[in-house]
């Protein structure tokens, strides 16, 4: 592993109800595609994308999980080693929003305590069908001390930002407790602190 050409390696796991667009988010980010008529994911899918942030190569291992209940025991096994979780819901589907507390309970139970969780409301291209008001989601995210972001995998809105911001945050955390984080390669020196949500650029 250490021979590979990257400064950081992070595992990101996408979770959330079936049909909220997890696979589309991942496809959009990793391949720049929006495959219409995507079938339900079976088990887990696995993608890799390496990005460069402030001159550092960051390898993102993205695990796209199936939302259906019968795959839950498979997807849960990936929580523990995840550096970040992207909890996704569909802004046009009230039900997918109402399930969020259940997902948080799962995270509490299976993920490690240092995991970074971000809440994503997907499908903002379907604004006319919106069922969950932005403020509601924002408030909910704040109450759970999560960052909230709204995306559209179809229009490619905020997708890049989602993953890059997350990578920035993970780098920041890795630098803060580099002893605890064994997944990240050792870092020389203490980097400048990066302000979250506004720092990213692909160089």
């Amino acid at each position, binding site marked *: 592993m250490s021979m590979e050409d990257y400064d950081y390696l992070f595992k990101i796991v996408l979770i959330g109800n079936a049909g909220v667009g997890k696979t589309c988010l991942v496809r959009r980010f990793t391949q720049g595609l929006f495959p219409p008529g995507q*079938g339900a994911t079976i088990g887990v899918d696995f993608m890799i994308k390496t990005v460069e942030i402030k001159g550092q190569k960051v390898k993102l*291992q993205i695990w796209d999980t199936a939302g259906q209940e*019968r795959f839950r*025991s498979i997807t849960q*096994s990936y929580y523990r*080693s995840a550096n970040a979780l992207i909890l996704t819901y569909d802004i046009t589907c009230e039900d997918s929003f109402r399930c969020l507390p259940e997902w948080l309970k799962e995270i509490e139970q299976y993920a490690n305590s240092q995991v970074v969780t971000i809440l994503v409301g997907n499908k903002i291209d379907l604004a006319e069908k919106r069922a969950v008001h932005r403020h509601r989601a924002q408030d909910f995210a704040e109450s759970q001390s999560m960052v909230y972001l709204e995306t559209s995998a179809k229009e490619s809105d905020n997708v890049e930002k989602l993953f890059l911001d997350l990578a920035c945050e993970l780098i920041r955390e890795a630098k803060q407790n580099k002893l605890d984080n064994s997944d990240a390669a050792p870092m020389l020196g203490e980097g400048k602190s990066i302000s979250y949500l506004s720092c990213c650029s692909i160089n």
Partner: protein
Amino acid sequence: MADSGGLMSVKRCDSLNSSSVSMETITALTELEDLERVYQQLCSEEKDVEVALDKLVDQQGLINTKMMTLQRMGPNLQLIEGDASQLSGMITFTCNLAENVSRKVRQLDLAKTRLYKVIQRADDILDLKFCVDGVQTSLRDEDYEQAAAHIHRYLSLDQSVIELSRQGEEGGSVDASLLMLQEAEQKLKVVVAERLDAAVAAVDLVQVERFFKIFPLLGLHEQGLARFGQYLCSQLASKAGENLLLATGGDVNEKRAPLVFAETLTLLLEGIARVVETQQPIVETYYGPGHLYTLIIHLQQECDRQAQKIVDKFIQQRDYHSKFQVVQNSMMKSPVPTERIEPRELDPVLMEVTLMNARAELYLRFLRRRMMADLEVGDAQSTTQEHQQNVEKLLKHCLLSTTMQELIGYYIPMEEYYMRESVNKAVAMDSHEKGQLTSSMADDCFYIVKKCISRALSSANIDCLCAMINHSTSALESDFREVLYNKLRQGYPATTLQDFQRGVSSAVSLMQSSLQQGKFNALGIESTEDAKAAFLVTLNNAEVCSENITTLKRNLENDCSKLFTQGPASGDRAKIDSCLSDLVNTSSKFKDLLQEGLTELNSTAIKPQVKPWITAFLSVSHNIEEEEFNEYEANDPWVQQLIVNLEQVMVEFKTGLTSASYDTLTSLMTSLVAIEMEKTVLKCTFSRLGGLQFDKELRSLVAYLTTVTTWTIRDKFARLTQMATVLNLERVTEILDYWGPNSGPLTWRLTPAEVRQVLALRSDFRSEDIKRLRL
């Protein structure tokens, strides 16, 4: 002046060929100066003109010769012109000829195609008549194959030709024939369908196959496949019903009873596979390639129904869901003591589930292969992609798949529970036999983990395998490592000798700290010796675990590549690799644990003993004369005893630790000795002979330590060796023979300040000399 100058320059610009100064200007000039200037100008112009003229005259000869050549070429040109016009005439002639020929050929071709069409139409009309007659007789004779062949012939005739024929003179008779044919076609369709239905009802395979083959001739592919599928399904259903009845009503004591549902499912799936295998050639021959997919859609519906029945019975008879519920409750770690399940009880049901899933995977793979092969024969690449997606959709989302996915969904937590409980049990039942380096749990735990992962692997479901690898990683990394970590935290108990040496007070404090930590001494269960052995065994366990993990990963890699050779998507491979690399990362965590433990051992068990032995160096004077030096030669004052002591202290670790761990410990001990020696030496004073004595002692020590360790220790003793060199100098200034540009291959590990410090240890060196040194 200025005016005339300006005028002149204008003129010059206007006319460059003729003289730049006109007659009028000259006559208008009145001043001598101007006249002279103009004269000069005219003279130089004249010269220029002369030069130009000379050049032109020179060219005359050349032009003359060129003219001559041109004149000579005149007659030739006339010849060429004649030839060219002749050629042109020939080409025009040829062209006309060719056009004439090709026009005739085209006419011939047209005539030929028309002739063919006429023949074709005549044939068709003849065929039509023949068909009309044939169908009548065939139908009368109940020779349906023949009748269908006639209808097929009729259907394959060009409809426009038939239309044309009706407009011809014989329109009336053709019309009548067509009407008869259409009637016959309808009649045949009805009859064949009836007969097939009757045959299906009568379970008459020969008749079913007979009429099944007729359908495509009548253009009824879908209908034929549907009816045939229905027949096959009813066959499968009755067989599966029998099998399931046998399974549920069978003798419980039967040898295969624990796997009876997996066997029943296997029978069902094998049955369908056999049907596909036998019917594929028939379908391909009579329906053409690409139709197997349709037949399989029909078969899969029955497969789903039957598989669901088997799985339902399995869940019911094996208490699958209630077992899962119990497992889940106990995994939640609820404070209320819940009903627990013995992991061993889960063994058979876990095996059965994985076997069922493996069979289903095998079956689905078989179907995929067959359908793909059939589709590839059928069409060119154009539609393959779409068909491929259809096939994938059928296989991935059929009820059989989702049912299996559900079973696996329950299986994983149960397998995880089985693993964690068994590991806990192995830890609880841990035993250590004297003479063994490790205790039973190190290998037991890995046996369990390996068993669980292998079982997951045997399900042939990659996600299931990955999930179990993940769970194993977390079980090893948190649970099992925690056990070892806690054992090591209890520390290595001090020896009685050490207590004695430390004095009573430290022994008391040691006791107190032991009491506070609730250690073995307070409980009085384990003796010190047992505690020591336990610590060493735990270290060995950590090392073995680290190795076992690496071995496990390697074995799993092999197994995976063997099992998934049929080429799973590269994504699956990457998934497994990623999970395996997480698993193997835990190996280094055990290694870190081992390293920590050895460091702890070194500082608690070795350091307190070694320190006084080295401090004893201080009580042996190195400020000595010849006489004492000789005396030391005869009776070694220090180093031999140190070596004996080191040998003694290490001997118990040599037998108690694995050789690799012992090596690491020895290396730690060696570093310790080197550091302590250095500190001690700096507190001594030396004479010239004392320095020599120290050099001898150091050599013996290094020689001994070299024999007990496989690591190179030269490096660790480099500073001490250099100190000995400094202490052995004749004069202060002799250091310069070894220092700086004279150091040769020697790299000094001592700083100039340290060299001075060491030099100062020599009682016979004057401090002024040392100060004066330029290092």
